[in-house]
């Protein structure tokens, strides 16, 4: 699944799976942290293009990475966010910590 994590410049692009739950969460967080700790990037971009479902485990992934990149003066972005994911991000207050770009029509 290495192709889901790609470094472009100072940005780590993370292509998120179709469903993000507790079962997927550890794998994603661990891999992002590994790349951040190697100093390969200081910003994280979560791409929700393929994502149709996310529960509160996704909040943990994003909030946890947000705390990590703060140390490197980095930022967290969420892109291709649809209205269902948007709802989850707003309800948890994450919209105040990260930069969100919406999918067309959402």
């Amino acid at each position, binding site marked *: 699944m290495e192709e889901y994590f790609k470094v472009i410049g100072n940005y780590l692009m993370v292509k998120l799976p179709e469903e993000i739950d*507790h079962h997927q969460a550890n794998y994603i967080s661990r891999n992002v942290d590994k790349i951040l700790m190697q100093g390969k990037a200081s910003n994280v971009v979560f791409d929700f293009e393929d994502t149709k479902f996310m*529960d509160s485990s996704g909040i943990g992934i994003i909030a946890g990475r947000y705390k990590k990149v703060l140390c490197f003066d980095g930022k967290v972005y969420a892109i291709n966010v649809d209205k269902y994911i948007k709802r*989850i991000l707003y*309800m*948890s207050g994450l919209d105040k910590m990260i930069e969100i770009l919406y999918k067309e029509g959402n």
Partner: protein
Amino acid sequence: MNRMRMEFRAVSVNESLARMTVAAFMTPLNPTLEEISDVKTAVSEAVTNAVIHGYGEDHESDEMVVMECRIEKDVLHITIMDEGVGIENIDKAMEPLFTTKPEQERSGMGFSFMEAFMDDLHVESEPGKGTKVHMIKKIGLTPWIEKED
């Protein structure tokens, strides 16, 4: 009226099994995509709680989660039960952002999401006696109270 009951091992891979099953079970009610998304999120939270908090990560292989669903008219009833450690202080557990597992990056939003996405939520639990989560959601656009002629 329709009803179902399923029992599955308390492991994280079954979180998606549970929410897929409920999504399929509720289709005769003609739910909107938003309603399906609401119910799936609530079920995912409740089952995740049973797996992580009820039994803990290093649990025995025969520990099971039970999910019962019932449709009455246009109302969906869901009960998710485990026989795990139970909850000492339910009010505290239901507070937004409260979590006993911050090291696992649990956001503490589980019960808040269940409350927000369902119409009613009721939690029964006692230390050592497991936890039962009842959730109710009315599906479809018809009003709660029938119109009088």
